[in-house]
């Protein structure tokens, strides 16, 4: 049976927006399919006809006279000029420190390398008291699963948050809090004191050598400080919502609600809640949300404006809230709905309070920085002078100030200014050195500085110690993740050396990069670097290894041969074979079989038909993805989930996109708004899928093998390519094995 590309694929091909892989596949299909060629022609004809649609004839000749009369008569018309920023997929990232973002990135690299197994999740950790005061003594009792039960002692490692860690210029620290000794009853016990400034801690239990970690199946354990009445402190809830938001959207959202319930005058709490809610609210309900947000702002304004003393940071937060309500628009003149910060408006009132305070807190200076950007975008030299003074005055380096100064610097066209603010970006956040190094490389006259910055980045990664290791990541997995990131940096560094004509240094750096763990982007950088060095043979060999990546098509090999000229067939095959071994090893490191926790995985389709995914998947590979309309990360990844479903269908692998029981119309609306209207969705009505996979967060993906074991699990975003690789490699390997057994 001939499988034709979907309409969407054909349309993207006709529209010339298909990616290389799709374009190549569709082109191959078209070579032998008249039906699809006619469809392409018809789609292109539609486009041409659109250019010939009626245009309304001529304008009246007195049009401008009428305009002149209206303008001279004092008429004003407000026209829409703001560029819309479509909702973003990142969730509550606006309040993340860059350090937290970097940590989340490392986590996403390493967490799939070592899944742990289900036995670990049968462990428990109890902390007493359950509602500690700040600085309290804590008793810890740990009952290990199979993973750690053989240890004489284990360590309790924690990510500690203090008040203000969610704000710019600071961040949580990770360290060992206690050692727990195994008693005769097999239970591990220990005591420790909470650091005085700690308001929230996320915890994991580890072997003393850090090679095996129990992160409560990824959930971690938690403790946070309370006041004498047993209520969580404001700072504790705030830090908790930030910490949770990075690993479980829905829990983070829930804690944000808890925060504003317990502390209804918390401006920052409400702002964080609205960030969650905005992401999740469909466009049809957006007006109602905006009204609620406005009502809450009006109440907060009345509450805080009636107080004699208002901390400058609160004033700044109220201004930010109002600014968010205004959609980021500012305009001089009287206050009105169209002019939200005009004189007499609440927004102007809080702006003045914040700016007159003289506070050098970076959150207050951020208000001045925003006005500076808007007022001086047409005069960047002046704007940069103001930005400079704000930078010097700020208590702590601030990412927002830097971003705005960067815009002004680029607008000024002065590379010295651009370079200055890039250096300051690294000063504010050292882990930005990679991005900054790459930008400096592209800045004329600053290539050498870019090289130096990337060398600094590579060195930073090489000496990264255990304190930066994310909770739940073993030392080995963390080290592998660092080596991979370093390999990527080295490929950029090699490009920098080549740009400066230092081929010796480029060659040395590429040799180092070649030792990094398997990673497609490293191989690309390596191959291109070798090609620029003139080492065509080595470049072909590297491209050959890359061609073994199951996500590359035949078109990739063709393009290499076209670009590099005739390639020795034997050498190419050997390189591809080497690459195949490498990618299989890479996949095997990511996979670990474990048993489902339920005998059936019953789901219900939109048409109310019930199916058992487990039975359907028997004897073959299948993929189950869990997502939720209540999870901002899931929503943002819907187009990728759709791509996964399409790709698996193309390969003949069953895929189920499973969500919680929900209103199908609301689901359909969410799919439409988030760019995946054709996604085939089923509902986990009985909860069997969540139970079966022990799933506690979305999005998450599971690869089921032919024998019914789970072979691979990934939580969070950015894993679609890995899912496809795992399926391709495992199914090819097991098909080959079954062929051999015939």
């Amino acid at each position: 049976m001939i499988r034709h590309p979907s309409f969407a694929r054909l349309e993207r091909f006709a529209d010339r927006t298909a990616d290389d892989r799709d374009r190549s596949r569709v082109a191959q299909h078209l070579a032998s399919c008249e039906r699809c060629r006619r469809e392409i022609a018809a789609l292109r004809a539609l486009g041409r006809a659109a250019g010939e649609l009626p245009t309304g004839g001529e304008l009246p000749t007195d049009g401008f006279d009428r305009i002149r009369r209206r303008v001279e008569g004092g008429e004003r018309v407000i026209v829409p000029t703001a560029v819309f920023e479509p909702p973003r997929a990142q969730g509550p990232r606006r309040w993340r420190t860059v350090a937290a973002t970097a940590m989340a990135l490392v986590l996403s690299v390493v967490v799939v390398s070592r899944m742990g197994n289900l036995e670990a999740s049968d462990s428990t950790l109890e902390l007493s008291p359950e509602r500690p005061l700040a600085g309290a003594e804590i008793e810890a009792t740990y009952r290990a699963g199979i993973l750690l039960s053989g240890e004489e002692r284990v360590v309790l490692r924690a990510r500690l948050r203090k008040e203000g860690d969610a704000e710019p210029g600071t961040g949580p620290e990770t360290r060992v809090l206690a050692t727990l000794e195994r008693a005769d009853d097999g239970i591990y016990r220990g005591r420790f004191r909470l650091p005085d400034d700690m308001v929230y801690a996320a915890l994991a239990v580890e072997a003393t050598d850090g090679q095996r970690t129990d992160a409560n199946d990824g959930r971690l354990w938690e403790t946070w400080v309370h006041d004498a009445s047993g209520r969580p402190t404001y700072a504790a809830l705030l830090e908790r919502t930030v910490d949770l938001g990075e690993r479980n959207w829905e829990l983070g959202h829930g804690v944000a609600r808890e925060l504003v319930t317990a502390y209804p005058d918390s401006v920052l709490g409400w702002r964080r809640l609205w960030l969650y809610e905005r992401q999740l609210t469909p466009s049809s309900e957006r007006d109602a949300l905006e009204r609620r947000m406005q009502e809450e702002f009006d109440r907060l304004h009345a509450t805080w404006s009636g107080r004699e003393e208002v901390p400058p940071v609160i004033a700044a937060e109220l201004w930010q809230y109002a600014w968010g309500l205004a959609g980021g628009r500012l305009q001089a003149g009287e206050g009105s709905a169209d002019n939200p910060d005009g004189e007499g408006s609440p927004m102007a009132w809080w702006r003045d309070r914040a700016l007159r305070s003289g506070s050098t807190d970076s959150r207050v200076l951020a208000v001045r920085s925003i006005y500076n950007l808007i007022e001086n975008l047409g005069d960047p030299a002046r704007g940069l002078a103001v930005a400079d003074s704000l930078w010097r005055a700020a208590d702590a380096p601030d990412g927002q100030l830097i971003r705005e100064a960067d815009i002004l610097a680029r607008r000024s066209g002065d590379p010295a200014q651009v370079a200055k603010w890039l250096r300051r970006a690294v000063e504010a956040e050292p882990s930005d050195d990679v991005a900054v190094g790459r930008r400096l490389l592209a800045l004329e006259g600053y290539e050498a500085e870019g090289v130096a910055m990337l060398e600094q980045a590579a060195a930073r990664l090489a000496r990264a110690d255990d304190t930066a290791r994310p909770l739940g990541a073993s030392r080995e997995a963390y080290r592998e993740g660092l080596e991979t990131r370093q390999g990527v940096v080295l490929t950029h560094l090699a490009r920098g050396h080549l740009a400066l004509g230092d081929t010796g240094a480029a060659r040395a750096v590429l040799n180092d990069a070649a030792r990094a763990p398997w990673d497609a982007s490293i191989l690309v950088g390596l191959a291109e670097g070798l090609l620029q060095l003139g080492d065509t043979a080595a470049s072909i060999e590297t491209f050959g290894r890359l061609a073994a990546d199951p996500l590359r098509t035949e078109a990739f090999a063709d393009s290499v041969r076209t670009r590099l000229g005739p390639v020795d067939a034997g050498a190419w095959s050997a390189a591809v074979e080497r690459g195949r071994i490498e990618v299989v090893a890479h996949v095997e490191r990511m996979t670990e079989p474990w048993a489902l926790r339920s005998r059936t995985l019953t789901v219900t389709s939109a048409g109310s038909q019930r199916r058992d995914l487990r039975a359907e998947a028997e004897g073959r590979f299948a993929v189950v993805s869990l997502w939720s309309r209540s999870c901002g990360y899931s929503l943002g990844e819907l187009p990728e989930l759709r791509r996964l479903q399409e790709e698996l269908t193309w390969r003949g692998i069953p895929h189920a996109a499973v969500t919680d029981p929900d209103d199908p119309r609301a689901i359909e609306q969410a799919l439409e708004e988030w760019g995946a209207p054709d996604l085939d969705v089923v509902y986990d009505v009985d909860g069997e899928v969540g139970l079966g996979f022990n799933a506690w967060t979305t999005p998450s993906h599971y690869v089921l093998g032919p024998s019914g074991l789970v072979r691979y699990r990934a939580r969070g975003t950015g894993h679609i390519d890995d899912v496809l690789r795992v399926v391709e490699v495992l199914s090819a390997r097991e098909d080959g094995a079954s062929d051999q057994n015939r």
Partner: protein
Amino acid sequence: MPQQRPSDGQLVRDVQNGSMAALGVLYERHAAMLFRTAYRFAGNREDAEEVVQDLFVGLRDALSGYGERGRFEAWARRIAVRLAIDRRRRGTRRDRARPSTAPPLEARSDQSDSVDAVALAAALAELPDSLREVFLLREAEGLSHDEIGEILGIRPGTSMVRLTRAKKKLRRMLT
């Protein structure tokens, strides 16, 4: 010495300084194009004329948000599209033009294909606004999905999906 034709950038600065003459030159250069664009989205002459009027009356205030990013023509066209879409959605004109009351078609190119522009116009009128707008912005105005997203407040991915659905429906209607 022959006078150099002022650039759009110079004219914009002059308008910001209050020059009616500069506004007139910008009108002369761009109004016809803006009217054609507005007509596609508003669906009738009267609304399209009002869009052009409002745009130029509000131009001086609007230019504070221009910042010379990109060409003036592209920037103004986006405003025209948004004004026209807003008008259509508000239903300012109750008697929206149907193909039978549309003005006579201009001469079509000899390269017109198997899809008739009149039939296409009729089919477009049957599409939901969300799909028609993306189709027109992409196919008639030639905007990228990023640019469409900025005008309509949707993600580029959503723009791509709506374009696909629009074309799917149009294909069904026109065959």
